[in-house]
């Protein structure tokens, strides 16, 4: 029987992996992930208006051209590969307007203003995007502030002090708490959200796959031959194991595709100086790791991560057990689709609660929900890493999941034994309850 279990598990796993659609889907997914990770490079490769140099012409009627030019030149970082070219316009206003006709150039007319140092007329031929407008406006405001402060007789030293951001010293009543730990919670909370989304997708995948496979065997009556030669228990657990192994392989492949995408990104990053790449380059993993290390969170992760892994394994097991039991009760794929909908809705609840949990820090309701099996897989990891729940609550979630798995194996298997050989929907629930009661 042990050999038959191995055979059925291997057969089921290989059937999925050798399937041409699995290979095709993975090639497509790999390309999509690699493209998404390098989307900025792709956008840059095909080019567009965003790559055009930004030409700003200034008619200076107030005498601040040099200050404005210096300030606007510093905005180059915000415009990707585009250069900011600032030039003084000596032509009359009407001629200057004609000169920017049918172009994307910007004409700034600086006029003296006794109350506000200077005012600016921002002239273009076409609409300007909001980011570009805001960046230029901020730059002009900065120039105005500096000029106003200088006019007020504030010397250079004082002026530089004003422009330096205020120094804030963060301290805690509890001496064991640190700023790095505080920062690390936010980082880990975001990280857990990124991890939970693929997990959610894999759960959907798992539930669908088990249902389809069991229904296929059942609908052809091949199930009678199979159960005539191996026990329902062997058949059930071979399906659970092979499906979970498959999901594990698929998850590892997704990580691999992401890794390949990042590697490609690293290789092309030297030539890539776009706004997105600059923004993403701020995600300095070394720096993040340093914060987490300084916070002493690594020690905590040392026992939290194994607990989260246990939570994941038990949750995947619970979802697959439930999927198998529900599939055995149905007589075709359409009915299974209906029956598995509540299961999918439950898994979505957890993900939704993660999104709103930041708006309700410390909410008792969310803490309680985070221990409920099937929801805990999404919610508990995020909350423990952000410090919203304690390790004790995580352990309660694991214990409840363990109990659910135990109940599903003990009683669900009885339902499965009856369900897979049942082809009629008459008195379905009566038959299932009767199966549960049988010794």
């Amino acid at each position, binding site marked *: *029987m042990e*050999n*038959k279990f191995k*055979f059925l598990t291997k*057969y089921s796993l290989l059937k999925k992996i050798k399937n041409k659609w699995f290979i095709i889907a993975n090639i497509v997914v790999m390309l999509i992930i690699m493209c998404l990770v390098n989307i900025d490079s792709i956008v840059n490769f095909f080019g567009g208006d965003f790559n055009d140099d930004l030409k700003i012409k200034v008619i200076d009627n107030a005498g601040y051209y040099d200050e404005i030019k210096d300030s606007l030149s510093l905005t180059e970082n915000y415009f990707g590969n585009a250069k900011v070219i600032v030039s003084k316009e000596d032509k009359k206003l009407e001629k200057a307007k004609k000169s920017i006709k049918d172009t994307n150039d910007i004409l700034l007319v600086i006029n003296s203003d006794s109350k506000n140092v200077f005012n600016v007329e921002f002239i273009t031929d076409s609409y300007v995007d909001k980011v570009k407008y805001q960046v230029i406006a901020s730059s002009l405001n900065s120039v105005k502030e500096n000029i106003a402060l200088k006019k007020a007789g504030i010397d250079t030293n004082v002026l530089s002090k004003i422009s330096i951001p205020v120094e804030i010293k963060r301290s805690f009543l509890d001496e064991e708490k640190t700023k790095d730990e505080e920062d690390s919670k936010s980082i880990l909370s975001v990280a857990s959200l990124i991890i939970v989304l693929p997990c959610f997708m894999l759960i959907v995948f798992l539930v669908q796959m088990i249902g389809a496979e069991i229904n*296929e*065997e059942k609908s*052809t*009556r*091949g*199930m*009678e*031959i*199979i*159960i*005539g*030669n*191996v*026990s329902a228990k062997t058949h059930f657990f071979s399906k659970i194991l092979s499906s979970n192994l498959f999901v594990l392989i698929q998850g590892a492949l997704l990580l691999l595709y992401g890794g390949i995408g990042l590697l490609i990104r690293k290789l092309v990053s030297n030539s890539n100086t776009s706004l997105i790449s600059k923004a993403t380059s701020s995600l300095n993993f070394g720096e993040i790791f340093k914060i987490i290390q300084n916070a002493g969170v690594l020690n905590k992760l040392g026992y939290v991560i194994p607990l989260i892994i246990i939570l994941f394994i038990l949750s995947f097991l619970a979802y697959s057990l439930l999927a198998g039991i529900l599939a055995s009760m149905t007589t075709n794929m359409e009915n299974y689709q209906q029956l598995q909908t509540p299961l999918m809705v439950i898994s979505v609840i957890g993900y939704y609660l993660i999104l709103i949990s930041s708006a309700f820090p410390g909410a008792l309701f969310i803490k309680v929900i985070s221990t409920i099996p099937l929801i805990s897989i999404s919610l508990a990891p995020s909350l423990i890493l952000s410090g919203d729940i304690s390790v004790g609550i995580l352990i309660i979630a694991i214990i409840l999941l363990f109990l659910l798995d135990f109940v599903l194996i003990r009683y669900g298997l009885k339902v499965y034994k009856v369900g897979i*050989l049942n082809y009629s929907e008459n*008195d379905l629930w*009566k038959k299932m309850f009767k199966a549960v009661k049988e010794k």
Partner: protein
Amino acid sequence: MLKVSNVTKYYGDVKAVDDLSFEVEKGEIFGLLGVNGAGKTTTFRMIMNLISPSSGTILFNGKKIDYNVTDKIGFLTEERSLLTKLTVKEQMLFYGALKSLDEKTVLKRLDELLKRFEIEEYKERKISTLSKGNQQKVQFISAIINEPKLLILDEPFSGLDPLNIELFKNVILELKEKGTSIIFSSHRMDHVELFCEKLAILVKGKTVLKGYLKDIKEDYKIKKIIIEGDVKKTDLKKINGVINVIKTALGYEVNIKDKTYVENVFEYIKTCKKINKFVLQEPSLEEIFVAKVGEAYGK
């Protein structure tokens, strides 16, 4: 040897099989007959240990049937039990492994059986692309790939043309010669009559007739006389012991209460001017079946 003893099966309040007992010896073919819903498939499922009897025992070679024994049993279900997305070869490797056979043995036997059933060219073809008859052949091969000691055939001739029925018959008789015990169900009484030494007729789960075919025919009192000649139907009907008279293409078929009444009919025949044929016949299994099932339904 298969021994089914006092087996009863309830589905809720419904008694699907009622106190069924029979034995199938080595190299014997046993026919389990009955109309739809008589309890044949339920009996087969109990033998295969797919469902448990509510009471009674089923033993194969003196042991309760479990997963240690099922490797030696072949089962052909009435409905298709093939995984149609697989090729014939993949299907056999899958079912063969479930019977604890290694790949080499399965492929060797498969080649032999495909040749025997004249479908060698379909080995690598997907089952879904095969005709109904060829699918039935593949299903039959899957049931005997393990060279079973006990073979359960639930409507094996379903979907087959006369030529293929002949092919199946020969293979089944070969298996019998090799010592395989075979349980057989069919709606076709001529097939059962050809194969089965022993049989049982089920009606609503209850056994209404059971035993050796020869004894059943002998014990069945109503006999049939075939007459061809110059006789009058009205005269035949008046004879003591005659149940009914049926006009056939060439003459008459006279059913009598039992063989002691043959003389009464013969006395009448002697008075007739011209008689070409006068034969006393055993009733066919179909006639016995119809009579017994009809009795059980009160018809």
